[in-house]
């Protein structure tokens, strides 16, 4: 080989070696994207925000969808929105994974004989549906339309569609129909409706079972208003319930009552305030103590607080109205409210929630009977899952099979849709036109925030097409219909409205007892089933139920009682999606349920103290429960501190068609099952993320240590926020002044910091979901969680310490000034940036994991494998945040991409960043406004101002890490668990 040949060969080899890796598909998308011109009006890389409405649950929060390069990547609450004012809950944050779900329906489908689905065209689908509808007409069967709660133009249009094609519209199906509350309000206030609760106007809030922050009507709104109430300085929240929930852990006073006894307490209170309980003599405090299980002291305190309050508010709901005496609870709560005299100030029926079309389970009973009798031919099922939610005795599953054509409308499959014959794939609300009217006097707009991902259509457009197939007149498209509707209602869709996302119209004063009744929504009261209730049987304007309390106030639930609770993460089950990726993960399951800290798995909670040796996977016996006729699938048994004795707690979505019965008067599902029979067998692993229910006196939440009063006082006395010198070093508390070899960090002009108010934090986990979506955190699935390899950058830690209390603390990177992670990194991947952030340079990281070992807060996360973002999930990747590869460490950055953007923006305008201009994702979404972010060098920033309280402390102060995150201790907690203290 001569010299030239050698150089040629060497050159070719080198070129080949360097080119080959370039042939892998990594990065192709980016390359292509750069070649295509951007769509009109879109500046590449520049985000645009589109206002729309979240349809994940009936609350209909206003959301602003962030769209970058034509891809919707993040939802945020609309600031100033009458419902959620900037906040968004965990489900709302996670709904984007529904949009980009790889298993979404991608085209219309028809069921084949062997049960699979074949893709068909829209034309074929429409023709099948239309011919079946005609067959129904000739065959004397009725066709029905079943949907979950709809409002606004869609509801109007469904009515129009049904009328045109002779389809009868069933009362809308919502398990959480709040029908007991609505009926009680009809009885007491003359409005069969749920008012807007002006919690922020109240100075005392008594909630009885109402899961205000989870599923009760409008959780984000309630969280926002409770936070505003707390800002007034005179606000006290007492929560009564038979189990434990995030409300119990967030309220100022938690009273745990024996299951089914809420009415006794309310009756007592009513009498204390001069009301009378018909059919009942005076209720003695001692009998309340005995029956409800509260101490005399807490009862006195409760009455005293209510007396002192000027605008008390009483809300009953949730599981407390879902037992045999549920209606009594609801009615007594309403009567108490009326008796207290503040109803007009704290309840607003003029802007009542739009539940008029929502039926109860009694309505479902009527139409499931028809189904079973074979009277129904075509059944449309739109965005609801009766196979999961309806009680088994209703026989939905069997009846559904008897329908001649089952047409399912949904984005993604569920139990009911799996049984349908024709699937009409729905567009996600982020890609369709629509509107909503969550409550009277508020109309919100739904507009597409990106192109259609698949061959799907909005519900309105599908119905419109069906009208066309049937040869009926129809609007041009659903958008045109909405525009005409808004014009008809006097608020034409102007660009301003489109930008704001909502319009508040002056609501006409609601006339008592004149609310439009549901179509078939009259509650048929079975004669004799409830002798104490007399109801007029003349739909559609039923007279209010007359409730007498002669039969007693307690539901008499004996023995071990199972409580079926609503689910913070899955609502009634609708938010529990199919697995998203190869790891079998979903975003909402990736986030632990905050009280039990279980992420993946189905479990029953029972009172007990989790082993403190620090294990992810509690041994967790398997438990088999028999309810009525049905034996439940085996569930894991979770020991739950602070759960009252002999109460078993399970989330509703874990039970398929739960067979607990229906309240014959209200149509509420019964959520209690007394005399529980169960047997344990085997072990089911579920991922329990907490290593210990106790903080072992480490002062992570200082007021929650064994002796709360003294400890907190001592702690606050010694607290100094400049954090250098401690007057009296103690553990946990201050650290002594330390000598250092290294120069102090100089931060100018910014040092970012955070203040988290634990009094406001409710553990709702919205911040966790927001963080996942904002920062492209991989969803790692159950196996990884069982192995302790979760990737969350922020987590909600519950601790149960002291006599009987529980509290949440959000834990995230503390961005220490003297960070233990920084000096140990051998390659400077962990470094201190000029703004005081602990930066992490992914492409420098070699993966020694020393930083994670040395982090006392344990917030660093290692990428154990490469996580794939299966198409189209890859489209929800935030382009401003790197997707981390295998072998590198990652952690919270205070959303450095947002800080960067904010600083750049300020620099363009030749100024410093304004206070509040930059908001990390967790801060932005927090419905309770518990987290403040800002510049620590700016004494006037909201964040620094919030710190100026004796509640301020930093976690593990004694370690001298100088965290930038300051917590405000919650010092107002009172807690009483009725039956013994765990």
């Amino acid at each position, binding site marked *: 080989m001569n010299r030239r040949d050698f150089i040629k060969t060497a050159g070719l080899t080198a070129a080949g070696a360097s080119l080959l890796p370039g042939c892998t598909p990594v990065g192709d998308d980016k390359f292509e994207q750069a070649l295509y011109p951007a769509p009109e009006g879109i500046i590449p890389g520049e985000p645009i925000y589109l206002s729309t409405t979240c349809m994940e649950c009936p609350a209909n929060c206003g959301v602003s969808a962030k769209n970058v390069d034509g891809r919707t990547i993040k939802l945020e609450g609309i600031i100033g929105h009458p419902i959620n004012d900037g906040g968004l809950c965990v489900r709302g944050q996670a709904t984007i994974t529904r949009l980009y779900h790889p298993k979404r329906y991608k085209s219309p489908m028809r069921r084949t004989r062997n049960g699979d689905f074949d893709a068909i065209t829209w034309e074929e689908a429409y023709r099948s549906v239309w011919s079946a509808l005609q067959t129904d007409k000739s065959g004397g069967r009725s066709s029905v339309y079943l949907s979950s709660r709809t409002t606004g133009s869609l509801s109007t249009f469904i009515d129009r569609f049904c009328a045109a094609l002779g389809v009868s519209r069933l009362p809308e199906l919502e398990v959480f129909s709040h029908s007991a509350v609505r009926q009680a309000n009809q009885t007491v206030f003359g409005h069969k409706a749920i008012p807007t609760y002006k919690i922020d106007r109240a100075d005392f809030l008594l909630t009885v079972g109402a899961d205000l922050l989870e599923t009760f009507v409008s959780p984000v709104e309630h969280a926002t208003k409770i936070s505003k109430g707390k800002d007034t300085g005179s606000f006290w929240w007492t929560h009564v319930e038979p189990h434990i929930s995030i409300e119990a852990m967030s309220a100022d006073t938690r009273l745990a009552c024996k299951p089914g006894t809420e009415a006794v307490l309310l009756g007592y209170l009513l009498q204390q305030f001069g009301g009378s309980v018909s059919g009942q003599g005076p209720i003695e405090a001692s009998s309340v103590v005995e029956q409800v299980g509260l101490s005399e002291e807490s009862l006195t305190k409760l009455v005293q607080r209510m007396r002192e309050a000027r605008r008390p508010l009483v809300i009953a709901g949730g599981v407390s109205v879902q037992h045999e005496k549920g209606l009594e609870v609801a009615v007594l709560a309403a009567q108490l409210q009326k008796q207290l005299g503040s109803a007009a100030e704290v309840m607003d029926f003029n802007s009542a929630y739009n539940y008029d079309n929502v039926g109860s389970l009694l309505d479902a009973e009527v139409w499931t009977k028809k189904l079973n009798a074979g009277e129904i031919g075509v059944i449309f099922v739109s965005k609801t899952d009766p196979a999961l939610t309806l009680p088994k005795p209703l026989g939905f599953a069997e009846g559904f099979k008897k329908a001649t054509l089952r047409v399912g409308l949904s984005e993604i499959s569920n139990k009911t849709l799996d049984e349908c014959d024709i699937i009409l794939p729905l567009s996600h609300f982020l890609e369709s036109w629509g509107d909503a009217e969550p409550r009277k006097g508020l109309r919100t707009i739904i507009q597409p925030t990106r192109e259609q991902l698949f061959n799907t259509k909005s519900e309105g457009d599908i119905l419109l097409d069906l009208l066309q197939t049937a040869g009926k007149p129809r609007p041009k498209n659903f958008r045109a219909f909405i525009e005409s509707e808004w014009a008809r209602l006097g608020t034409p869709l102007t660009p301003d409205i489109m930008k704001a996302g909502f319009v508040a119209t002056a609501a006409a004063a609601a006339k008592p007892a004149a609310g439009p009744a549901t179509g078939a929504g009259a509650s048929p009261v079975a004669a004799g089933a409830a002798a104490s209730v007399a109801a007029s049987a003349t739909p559609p304007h039923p007279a209010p139920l007359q409730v007498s309390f002669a039969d007693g106030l307690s539901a008499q639930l004996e023995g071990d009682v199972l409580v079926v609770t609503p689910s913070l993460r899955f609502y009634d089950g609708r938010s529990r999606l199919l697995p998203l990726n190869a790891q079998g993960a979903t975003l909402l399951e990736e986030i632990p349920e905050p009280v039990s*800290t279980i992420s993946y798995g189905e479990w029953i909670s029972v009172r007990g103290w989790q082993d*403190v*040796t*620090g*294990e*992810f996977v509690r041994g967790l016996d398997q438990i088999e429960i028999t309810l009525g006729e049905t034996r439940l699938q085996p569930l894991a048994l979770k020991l739950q501190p602070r759960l009252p004795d002999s109460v078993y707690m399970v989330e509703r979505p874990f039970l398929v068609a739960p067979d607990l019965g229906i309240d014959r008067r209200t149509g509420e599902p019964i959520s209690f099952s007394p005399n529980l029979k169960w047997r344990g067998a085997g072990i089911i692993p579920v991922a329990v*993320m*907490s*290593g*210990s229910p*106790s*903080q*072992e*006196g*480490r002062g*992570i939440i200082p007021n929650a240590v064994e002796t709360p009063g003294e400890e907190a006082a001592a702690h606050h006395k010694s607290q100094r926020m400049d954090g250098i010198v401690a007057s009296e070093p103690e*553990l*946990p508390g201050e650290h002594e002044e330390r000598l250092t070899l290294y120069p102090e960090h100089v931060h100018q002009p910014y040092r970012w910091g955070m203040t988290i108010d634990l009094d406001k934090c409710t553990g709702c986990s919205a911040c966790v979901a927001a963080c996942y979506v904002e920062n492209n955190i991989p969803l790692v699935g159950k196996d*990884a969680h069982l*192995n*302790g*390899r*979760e990737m969350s950058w922020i*987590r909600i*830690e519950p*601790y149960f310490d002291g006599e009987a209390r529980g509290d949440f603390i959000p*834990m995230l990177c503390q961005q220490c000034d003297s960070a*233990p992670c920084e*000096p*140990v*990194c*051998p*390659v*400077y991947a962990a470094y201190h940036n000029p703004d005081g952030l602990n930066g992490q340079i992914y492409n*420098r*990281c*070699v*993966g*020694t*994991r*020393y930083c*994670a*070992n*040395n982090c*006392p*807060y*344990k917030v660093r*996360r*290692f*990428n*154990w*494998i*490469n996580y794939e973002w299966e198409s189209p999930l890859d489209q929800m990747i935030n382009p401003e945040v790197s997707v981390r590869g*295998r*072998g*590198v*460490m990652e952690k919270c950055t205070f959303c450095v991409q947002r800080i960067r953007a904010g600083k750049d923006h300020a620099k363009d305008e030749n100024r410093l960043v304004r206070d509040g201009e930059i908001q990390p994702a967790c801060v932005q979404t927090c419905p309770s406004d518990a987290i403040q972010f800002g510049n620590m060098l700016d004494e006037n920033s909201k964040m620094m101002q919030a710190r100026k309280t004796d509640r301020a402390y930093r976690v*593990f102060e004694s*370690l001298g890490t100088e965290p930038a995150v300051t917590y405000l201790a919650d010092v107002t907690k009172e807690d009483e668990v009725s039956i013994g203290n765990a």
Partner: protein
Amino acid sequence: MLKPTKWYFFGLVLALLAFTGLLVTWVHMIFSGMHLSGKNNPVGWALYITNFVFWVGIAHSGTLISAVLYLFRARFRSRFNRAAEAMTLFAVMVAGLFPLIHLGRVWFFYYLMPYPNQRQIWPNFRSPLVWDVFAVSTYFTVSVIFWYMGLVPDLAIARRRTTGIARWVYRVLSLGWSGSSTQWRPYNKLYGLLACFATPLVVSVHSVVSWDFAMGIVPGWHTTIFPPYFVAGAIFSGCAMVLTIMIPMRKWFKLESLITIEHIESLAQMLLLTSMIVAYSYIIELGMAFYSGNIFERAQFMYRMGGYYATLYWIMIICNCVIPLSIFWRKARRNLTWMFFLSIFVNIGMFLERFNIIVQSLSHEFEPYAWGRYHLTYTDVFITIGAFGMFFMLFLLFAKTLPVLPIWEVKEETH
């Protein structure tokens, strides 16, 4: 240079298989991810770092025996020193592998080296891991030179006894050694000098390794006692490993006349001394945890003694502190079978000591919510077995090709 028996080949093949297992699982892990090892969020270091510390510890006795005892003119040294030095070398080679194995992105291992680059990024000299890089590489270099210097006269002897290609190799390696007094005089000087140079390394290397832990703030790691404690532990485990190897070797290679019971006894006494230092350290550690009033430290040691891994803690105490006490008994320390098993116990105990320090501390740190456990995986087990495989493979190859005893020193002593 005896003809190898079939047992030799059997052992070699076994060791080779184990080593291959290490390579295969490691390569698999490089291509698949660190999830194959049982580590997780609180426990970021586990069996690989345990192995690293263990093997660095093993390495220590080699230098101790060859250099320190040389300077002290301890006569029993000459019977062990070649094997001990080889052990050092191979143990450092094995140990050096583990920081690489445990890296999340081993393909960027060179980021830890200070090399000039256009980005002007240097390693973080404040990080104990960078100190490790220097400590271990220095140690390896010095050990190689020291070992090789000791070998040169023996290689010359081997050159005389072999033929063909082997003879040619030995000739090159013996650097023209003729054994003349003009060569011996500077040679002895150099050897003494190297011994002086190597001696501080005995203390420094394991001190640096201990700083990997002591410099961290993890309860159970962050103590000033670590350097002496680790050095004593290293010598302890190293002496045990020398016994584990020399007792069978003495029998198989029929070296009874050269390595006498008295020699073994001296080593056993060394073992006893270091065992007691280690036991003292354990007591101090506990004392500090409870005396200091630091709740994190206290919780950590309560966890060690009564937590999930408590069994391992107590096995460690028995192996390291209780069983070696039998050396006090003359009959026991002259019983080779007992000494062999004792050395095995000490090896187990010292391996567990490192495991306890690393895994237990990490699984029970400051944040109770984040407490968690480490569980063994097949990958971890294969890699650990492979480490032993690699060590014994190298040692067996060495025993076949090079003199296991320093012939010239033994001659010097016996003449």
